[in-house]
């Protein structure tokens, strides 16, 4: 039920380059996994409230106060490329033609 082209679409959405072999292998493996998990949607009927969080906490907030030390050097230290205190990245496509 999960086709190779569907996997390719998902890989594009997830920004992952996959080789042809990987696409083939993944399509069949994901298919097996998806059939194994299909039963969940059959059993879980409409009137059950979904659980998104493991603990029943609400309203966890912090006061609007500054809690910060300027550490731009450290924050930039792990970057692949830096220029003038900013993260340098390759050209960004999209938006305008």
């Amino acid at each position: 039920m999960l086709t190779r082209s569907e996997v390719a679409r998902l890989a594009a959405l997830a920004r992952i380059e996959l080789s042809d072999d990987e696409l083939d292998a993944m399509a069949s493996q994901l298919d097996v996994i998806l059939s194994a998990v299909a039963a969940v949607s059959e059993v879980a009927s409409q009137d059950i409230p979904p659980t998104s969080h493991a603990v029943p906490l609400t309203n966890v907030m912090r006061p609007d106060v500054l809690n910060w030390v300027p550490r731009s050097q450290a924050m930039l230290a792990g970057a692949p490329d830096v220029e003038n205190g900013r993260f340098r990245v390759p050209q960004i496509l999209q938006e305008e033609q």
Partner: protein
Amino acid sequence: MADELLSFDAVLERFDPVLGLEVHVELSTKSKMWCGCPTEFGNEPNSQVCPVCLGLPGSLPVVNAKAVESAIRIGLSLNCQIARWCRFARKNYFYPDMPKDYQISQYDEPLCFDGEIAVEVGEMAYQVPIERVHMEEDAGKITHIGGVGRIANADYSLLDYNRAGVPLMEIVTKTIHDTGAAAPEVAAGYVALLRDMVRALAVSQGRMERGNLRCDVNVSLMPKGASELGIRSETKNVNSLRAVADAVRYEMRRQGAILSAGGRVVQETRHWNEAGYTTAGRSKETAEDYRYFPEPDLVPLAADPAWVEQLRATLPEHPGKRRARLRTEWGFTQREFGDILAVPGALDTIADTVLAGATPIAARKWWLTELARRANEWGVALDELPITAKQVAEVQALLDTGQINDKLARQVIEGVLAGEGDPAAVVQHRGLTVVSDTGALEVAVDGAIAADP
């Protein structure tokens, strides 16, 4: 600009415009939405970042209580319902200005929903229905290097995440119908109302020119008598009130031309060009799949009704009501009052000047002529000029008591703006008093001697 345009009147003969407005308001909290970094504008790049707003592996967000409070107060001002229980959601998409490659936002459970607000245009009041007010975070700032500074042909880009994680409120209207020829003014009036509201609430600086308030304008046309909505365009980041009206007008005319020629409007994102037209952006035919799901790192919000009522009690006078009241109190015509509303910040500065003792007519005169001209020259807002409402009232008092004339008053204002002190001090320092009796003459002569012995 190659778009065919139908005349505005021709559009209105055949179609009814339908509007939808999405306004992003950057909150003026001290700290960011999820972390304790400052939100200050204009500092060294990446000086206001930490593991949280940089989305470093392992970091976690914690909600800024003030931001939630501000969102609820905005919602209440727009007569919204406040959700008894709601969650944050992740909006998943890749873009280098989003450090986590997802934006924490709200999806099908906004904090505030189902509101309504009246927008006055001329003698008419238009009801703008509010769909939702929800909380989210701002993105970092991209600088494109090389090319001609436009995205498509930049050689590379530089990223500053100081703005990443600054609290944003998104205020979304339902579709706005039955505005007819007033559509452009209703859109601009609504945004102006929001701007004044967030300022009155003191939750945002509300400056469109600085991007504190950003507007996306959705426009579609319905043929007269039709019952189905037309296909809409969404014009992004329209950054002034005038541009909001112009973008609506332009899109009405552009779509009118397409539809009149038997064509089909493309559902797409468009960009507003300062020169007064829109250009096509990304087509929405292949809609982004944002894969929203409840944010597991943040727990649900359950706004206690008692807290909401407490916040309701803190609301300032509703901007619409306040306008109506001031207009009556000041005795201006709709037109005279409209001129005040057209200048950002003028209503507040005039009101303050009246409170400081000036007549409404005098206050209006100074702020809309001499001072508006100065603000315009310097590229600042009225309330950023180095003169206070009290000082303007003092100038007027000097004028009213005959100590200076109108021409000298302008010089006094000049002096205050130049940092020479209060009006009385400027008068004395510059020796500007009108000579009307001998005592004053002596003062003036002494002053002149003192200044130039």
